[in-house]
């Protein structure tokens, strides 16, 4: 119970719980539609989803500042690739939150005659850029860890004598398969021993389908978007409940 109180005290945690509920409503709405449920129930679910979406926009009103502060911190990182990826990702997030605030003002009627579709598309574009940069960072970290693992394996055991010594010949199919199997095994080992990286990779991969669908680049449908949103929210909540699962920096 004490941990719930501490958890609840964080504004971000509340926002994540509401996000999980919102995408659960999206998924529920899709399954109800497929299952041919009553129109009134579907209307209630979609109203609940809209209410949660608007409330989350209210809760996110100050997040541009947080994203800018995070960008300022990311500029001081030593690794240049990480520095680039994270700084630009945070700046894109700050722009996404700014567009989101404008959308909130439009939806509550503070700003009249707002082209909601245009601003919505804008905000999803910034969100997509931020996610692509996060994924780039994940892939970069993964590559570094795989290279490290490869080197440590080569140091532990000398290379097998069954490898072909004549490199001028093009590699045959079994060699390619063996190489693929080895790479896959390396990948699985690295991911298994680095849960924060695995969680972050999964989270970003799930999240990326949402703007891809909304921008019309890769439409997948309400059900898939709902499932992806729910999965990424749950993973994000996991990293909040267990801070050691969060990928740093």
């Amino acid at each position, binding site marked *: *119970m*004490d941990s*719930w*109180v501490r958890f*609840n*005290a*964080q*504004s*971000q*945690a*509340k926002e994540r719980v*509401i996000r999980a509920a919102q995408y659960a409503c999206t998924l529920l709405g899709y399954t109800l539609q497929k299952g041919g449920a009553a129109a009134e129930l579907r209307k*209630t679910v979609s*109203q*609940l989803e809209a*209410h*949660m979406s*608007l*409330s989350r926009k*209210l*809760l996110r009103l*100050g997040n541009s*500042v*947080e994203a800018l*502060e995070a960008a300022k911190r990311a500029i001081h990182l030593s690794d240049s690739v990480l520095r680039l990826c994270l700084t630009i990702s945070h700046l894109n997030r700050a722009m996404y939150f700014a567009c989101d605030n404008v959308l909130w003002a439009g939806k*509550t*009627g*503070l700003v009249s005659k707002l082209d909601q579709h245009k601003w919505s598309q804008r905000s999803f574009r910034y969100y997509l850029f931020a996610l692509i940069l996060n994924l780039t960072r994940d892939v970069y970290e993964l590559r570094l860890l795989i290279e490290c693992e490869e080197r440590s394996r080569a140091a532990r055991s000398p290379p097998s004598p069954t490898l072909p010594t004549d490199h001028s010949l093009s590699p045959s199919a079994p060699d390619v398969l063996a190489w693929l199997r080895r790479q896959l095994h390396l990948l699985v080992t690295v991911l298994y021993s680095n849960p924060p990286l695995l969680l972050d990779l999964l989270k970003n991969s799930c999240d990326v389908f949402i703007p891809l669908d909304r921008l019309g680049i890769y439409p997948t449908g309400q059900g898939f978007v709902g499932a992806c949103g729910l999965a990424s929210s749950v993973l994000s909540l996991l990293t909040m409940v267990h801070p050691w699962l969060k990928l740093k920096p």
Partner: protein
Amino acid sequence: MDAVVKFTSQSQGRDRIFRATQYACALSIYLLRNNSERKNLVAKLKSLETNMSAGRKLFRLGNTVNSIEAAKRTMQLSDRVLCLCLTAANMNRALYFICDNVLWARSVGLIRDIDKERWSLNSSRCYFLSLVMSLTRDVYVVLQLMTQRARDKHFRQKMELQLNESPEVAEAVIPHLDAFLFLLLESLKSHPAVALDTLKNICDLFIPLDRLGLYKSNAGVVGFCGLISSVIGIVTLAQPKLRLKP
């Protein structure tokens, strides 16, 4: 900027800012109600107030547990009066949050067959009782401080000096009242946390008093009192020294 980020990252910090904005809107709507040129602005303020109120109800969904945990903590206090007042206040707040959650479910359409007016009155009653218990605790703390001060020899000398300085004060009843007021003001000045908490609870009290019909004021007074109490809440959260403990 860093302090602002830290403040808003607390769920309570954001909620108090929203509450202050909500009551500022209510006050502005009341002040502009007769102004025909500003009808557009009044409509926008009404929409903003409704949105903030609805959003805050959603964010309060987990607070019942918080209040029950707080009640469990205050049950272990050594001072019996404090223990009683604070536990009763926290339990009433927990009941208020339960009624509030039911009202939220009604407003989004999850529950349909409940009497909204009855539940709304019940939630106001629980809130009123929790405020009364908090005020009782404030009065108890102030009385304790006053008796402590009255026993202090240095303070008594200071008081004698203060009272003898103004000879035009009438005799009989007034010297006692003057001494009492002086003691009260000095105690409050030396413990700003108690003064702020008392002021906050008194301001908050007008809201359920109006809602329950016990002391009908108008929307402007309610808005103003709500705004003052929210601002005091923000100040006590930003400066933990000004927060009354336990």
